């Protein structure tokens, strides 16, 4: 599904270069729910941005559905994003001049989909994310959780190959956060969609099926959920994170 090889990315001028990603290899299978974790400045958001084609890389290759992203120009990249990728951002990034419904339908507007099919898709996703009753409201009339669910609906309505989520719960309280994640996981299981999510919160990460830990621009560890319960998985994540940050618990 997604295959990244030897990714390098740096910022700054030639003299004062700051290396953020220092050679990352990552394979993501179809239907996986991957969480990328790491401390601030570890490069996790940068990784998400390059994986999702929002940012360019210096070196390496990224293939999604056997298409090489690094060889595309901006125009084709935009087209690719529009048709095959979905995005959920921490700040929701909803257009405040559009209603919830208009926001959600936006990705379909360019696909020349018939109004009937689009309407059905909207009804389904809005029902699943429980935002049907606020369909005609504007984003500023919604709670944070509702806004983020709208954002999720927009990211998933066109059934993208991969959904990228950057700290989707970062601006939500814990109740709204777990609510959102429940919804996303249900959608993920029903549609067998692929999700890549960046987070620093172990609880959030525990909803995933695999966690990738980043440290100093490299992959430090990976961890599969397997068949264990979420609580156990969370404990494992916490342990790894503790090792990662250099803090050792007495067990």
């Amino acid at each position, binding site marked *: 599904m997604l295959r990244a090889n030897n990714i390098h990315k740096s910022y700054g001028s030639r003299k004062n270069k700051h290396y953020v990603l220092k050679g990352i290899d990552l394979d993501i299978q179809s239907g996986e729910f991957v969480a990328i974790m790491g401390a601030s400045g570890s490069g996790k958001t940068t990784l998400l941005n390059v994986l999702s084609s929002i940012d360019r890389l210096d070196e390496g290759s990224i293939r999604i559905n056997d298409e090489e992203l690094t060889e595309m120009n*901006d125009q084709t990249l*935009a087209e690719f*994003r529009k048709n095959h990728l979905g995005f959920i*951002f921490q700040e929701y*990034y909803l*257009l405040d*001049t559009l209603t919830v419904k208009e926001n959600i*339908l*936006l990705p379909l*507007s360019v696909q020349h989909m018939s109004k009937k099919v689009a309407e059905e898709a909207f009804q389904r996703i809005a029902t699943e994310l429980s935002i049907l009753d606020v369909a005609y409201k504007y984003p500023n009339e919604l709670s944070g959780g509702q806004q983020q669910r709208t954002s999720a609906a927009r990211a998933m309505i066109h059934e993208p190959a991969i959904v990228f989520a950057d700290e989707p719960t970062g601006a939500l309280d814990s109740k709204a956060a777990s609510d959102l994640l429940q919804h996303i996981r249900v959608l993920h299981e029903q549609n067998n969609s692929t999700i890549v999510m960046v987070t620093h919160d172990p609880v959030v990460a525990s909803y995933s099926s695999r966690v990738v830990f980043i440290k100093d621009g490299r992959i430090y560890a990976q961890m599969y959920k397997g068949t264990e319960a979420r609580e156990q998985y969370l404990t494992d994540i916490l342990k790894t994170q503790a090792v990662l940050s250099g803090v050792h618990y007495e067990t």
Partner: protein
Amino acid sequence: MKHKQLIFKNVKRNIRHYFVYIFALTFSVALYFTFVTLQYDVSLEALNDLVEASSVIQVGSIFLVFIVLIFLMYANNLFVRRRSKELGIYQLVGMTKKQIFRLLVKENMLIFGSSVLAGIFIGFAFSKLLVMILFTFIQIETITSLHFSMEAFIQTLLVFTGIFFVICMMNHLFLKRQSILHLFQKMSTNEQKDPRITVSTSIQAVLGVACIGIGYFLSTKLFSGDFSGYGIFYAMFAIVALISVGTYLFFRGSIGVLLQLIRKQKDGHVSITNVFSLTTILFRIKSSALLLTIITLLSTLAITLTSIAYISYHSAEEKVKEMIPHDFSVFTDEDAEQFTNALTKQHISYTTHYIPVSHAFFDIREALVPGTYDNIDLNEHPELLLKVIEDSSGKLAEDEVILTKPEDLLEQMLVFKDSGQITLCNKGNDEDLVLVEVQKESVLPSRLSEGFPVVIVHEALFDHIQSEEALTTENEFPLYIGIDLKRNSHMEEANNMFHALGLNKWKGIWTGFESQVDIRSAHLQSMGLLTFITGFLGLTFLLTSGCILYFRQMNESDEEKNRFEIVRKLGFTEAELLKGIRLKQLMNFGIPLLIGLINSYFVVQSSWFIFGKEMWTPMVIVMVVYTMLYSIFSFLSIQYDKRVIRDSM
């Protein structure tokens, strides 16, 4: 850091923000100074015995101050709002509002001072060019020597000092009203209103369309005879008021309702093009209604004034022919002889037309379209004293007459049917005559006909009228002699002889009714000056309203940057966004322009005939030029948007 350092650092670092404001100021000063320089220019004094040139310019300059004030207030408002976060931070670190205000005043002083000086310098260079254009326009050959006018300098300084204080007051009010929290939120200047249709917007929408409609309807009826005397003035006032209010309500209500209906019909399925046109405009239309109204009305004013001035300039030649049908006119045999002898001596060939003139009372109501002549009370005093001449072609029967067309405004009040009859009032012994034609060419100077139709009759009838004319009233001009030169090249010379012989006896108020050359130059000068000044004002209105819209669009797209970023991250291409932006700018610039054009069409058609002979050609030329110049600003806005879109990700 001291205040002074802070100011300089601010100006230096925020030069991009300041640029718009400084540009607006310099530009206004340059325009104003140019205009006032014209007013005080000595070389214009040559015109003063013909038209009150400087007073026309003075009225213009008052208009100019008004528009410049609006313009600068808007620019300042944008400017301060853009910096509201900065102002908030100053307060946060402990500066008092008073200190900040003082800082703003000092900063403004710096900006005003340098802009005014720069503007005056540019204006001076520009005014020289302008005077040269003016003189070629009104066909005067003088050497344009323009001095730096101290009076103009002082007046400009005074006006802009006044504006400076107004702006400072505005800033003071702004600071006083805003809390720190407000200042931080003010970064996005758009006061977004919920675009959903409420009862009051629907009422406004309907009222707006109704007001404009009634205004237009009234304007078509202005001189049709439905209003008389003061009624015309009241009607004019009503038209202006209805159109102005209607335009405002139209922007506040009608457009929003219209767009909202379109949007509702889409039921959420909006395209990316709609996102950046329809929905964005909907959100802002209410808060920008006033601004759009001002711009529309300014456009209306500019187009109307320029059209009317150009209509009069355009018809100058025809008007001259109407006012005096021959190159020269004299009224006695002796004068004619004196002139023709002189012409012969200089070997200038000519033709002479001897036309005996009489007059009689006529009742012409039967030949008029009913209802059109209510303004001139024909029903109470049906008998009109009209000039009569005999038919030289011999094609008229004894009971037939030809009338010449009435001039100017009278043409709207005396509207003739295709055929009809008029009555010669003959002391109880009335005679009915058949009107066979209303001819366009004038046969007598307006001085004689006074704008009324001239009656052309059969020889026999003319003799009869002439023999009884003593019974009516004294005939001031029993004879009219028109002299035409065979070649135009001698015109100037002949005119000088005409003057030298003292035949231009009507020098003064009737100047020119004896010589076409005189009236043409007088006419061209007054019309030319008027056209020039209105053209200049029109251009000013155009530039300022274009700038205001451009600034607004710049500001808007800066605010929209994050929206561009969102949809670009979602994968929409620059080209797709641009499609929406183009549509938006088309609406933003196009709607005020379109309404302005329609408004001015209705105003112009209501009264253009007072000023000239043809409406369409000059009006369309003005409109096309205006539209083209105006489009430059929408083009600039799109360029700006393009850059913002490109930089948004």
